[in-house]
């Protein structure tokens, strides 16, 4: 693709011009949709963040300059909720990256009988609406009657107080999150199946065992999918909301261990109807996530391999 290297302003070849035209045509659905359904609301929210707009009193709006952003620096809940989000990320991000790969490897194993059935059943929980899944898990994780603790008692282990103990709430959230694994493992599996078998045969001829083939053929070739999972997990963590909100009704219990950033944002905007400060919080969340995502994409240059040849 020599056309890509053509410097801007230089005369384009007819082929490059045609490709550029079709490129814009192909891109146009998103460009139009972005302008209408995303850019406009974003601008509105940016404007809100400089006002004292309240949903309860939408007529009385006045500009307050940078007051909302100044408040970010003194609001103790900002520090608490960012800390909570970060601490939970340290536990759940590695799991969110490793588990889909492990599960996909298991379900792609040639030693597994009944693969289609296993794949369907492992994907099934992902189809359950989040809210009902959380209610189900709340029952399963109940200290007394929950099936998980009954199971633990069967093997002689004391069942912890999953949902009301500061030490166990994060493992509990991770367990509940396992039901959201379906999509990540499915696309990882698809990525594994897209690896040309010729690579494995070549590696086998070179004397690579199963582990070496996984390490040196599978992993590099599915690294774009791993990057996808990692980015989406990170973003999902920054806007983690449904599970802690339903479990503790937004109180942050036990302790303040479930006062995630998005819950603080939600309560500000839709419980206290303070849309102005809420918008400022949203923009802070946006900035933090963009920086972290940017770092991930920057690091991707060193560990993500695109067979298509392009980097980034």
């Amino acid at each position, binding site marked *: 693709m020599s056309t890509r290297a053509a410097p*801007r302003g230089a005369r384009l070849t007819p082929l490059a011009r045609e490709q550029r035209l079709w490129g814009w045509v192909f891109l146009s659905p998103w460009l139009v949709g972005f302008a209408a359904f995303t850019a406009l609301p974003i601008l509105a929210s940016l404007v809100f963040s400089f006002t004292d707009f309240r949903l309860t009193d939408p007529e009385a709006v006045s500009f307050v300059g940078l007051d909302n952003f100044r408040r970010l620096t003194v609001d103790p809940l900002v520090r608490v909720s960012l800390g909570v989000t970060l601490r939970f990320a340290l536990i759940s991000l590695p799991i969110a990256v490793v588990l889909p790969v492990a599960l996909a490897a298991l379900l792609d194993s040639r030693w597994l009988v009944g693969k289609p059935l296993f794949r369907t059943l492992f994907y099934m929980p992902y189809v359950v609406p989040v809210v009902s899944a959380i209610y189900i898990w709340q029952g399963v994780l109940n200290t007394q009657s929950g099936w998980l603790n009954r199971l633990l008692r069967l093997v002689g282990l004391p069942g912890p107080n999953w949902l009301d103990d500061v030490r166990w709430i994060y493992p509990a959230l991770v367990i509940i999150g396992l039901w959201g694994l379906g999509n990540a493992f499915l696309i990882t599996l698809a990525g594994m199946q897209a690896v040309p078998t010729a690579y494995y045969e070549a590696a086998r001829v070179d004397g690579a065992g199963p582990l070496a083939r996984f390490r040196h053929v599978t992993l590099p070739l599915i690294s774009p999918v791993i990057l996808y999972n990692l980015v989406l997990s990170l973003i999902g963590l920054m806007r983690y909301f449904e599970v802690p909100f339903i479990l503790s009704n937004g109180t942050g219990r036990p302790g303040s261990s479930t006062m995630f950033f998005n819950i603080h944002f939600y309560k500000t905007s839709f419980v206290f109807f303070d849309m102005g400060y809420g918008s400022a919080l949203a923009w802070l969340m946006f900035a933090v996530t963009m920086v972290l995502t940017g770092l991930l994409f920057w690091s991707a240059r060193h560990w993500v391999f695109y067979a298509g040849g392009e980097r980034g």
Partner: protein
Amino acid sequence: MAAVGSARAYPTVGSSYANTAPHYRRSLRRMGLTATVTLFATMLLTVYLMPFGYMVVTSFKDRDQIVASATGPVLPVEPRTVDVGGRQVPVYRVPLDGEVRELALVRPGRRESVFVDPADPAGAEVTWEGAWRTLKPAYVFAPRTGNFAEVWRGIDFPRLLFNTAFIAFTGMVGTVVSCVMVAYAFARFPLPFKGALFLVLIATIVLPKQVLLVPTYAFFHAIGWTGTWLPLIVPHFFANAYNVFLLRQYFMQLPPSSTRRR
């Protein structure tokens, strides 16, 4: 592998000394691996889907049974009672002579109580010494289907299913068509500002949906779409960042030679 090699070293055809052991050992190993991996996956799946079991079992319980199951059995049950002389009496699990028997309590007492055999209420009475309140009740399996009837009566399920199916189908068509187009453009076409545009696309994933909620509603209201299905359907035809990102990753994973112009 070495075992296979040694097997070939022997004359195998027409020889009574053909050594088939390596062959069997290999297929045994294969069977063992298959059994191990499949068993492991089955155990994993059982634990993973355990909440579904909880959901199904709970759906067959009425309110009292759910309360009772906090300390009682897992399955939907009710305390067993039996008709003794025209009145319903509860059945308890009574330890007698080293075994536990299910007996109907006819005359409770503080120090000792009188029981009869539920299978033979008119038969001999059994006196048991001890406080009857310490005994565990006997249960019978009693699933309740009332919850299902309540759901069916409470909502117009066929109508809801049609709504969901219609919006899901049109949304799916729109999503697939638009996202494939956009992702292909991002993966393959040489466009100016492509990198920056892609970052903008990823950034839209980061945006908290709640921020956009009020302005988006105002926008749909302004163009007269509120109260219609249009806001649920039309945006799908303009691609979404998640699927564009995903498809772009796949397109870039494919060698360009498979799509390059010939």
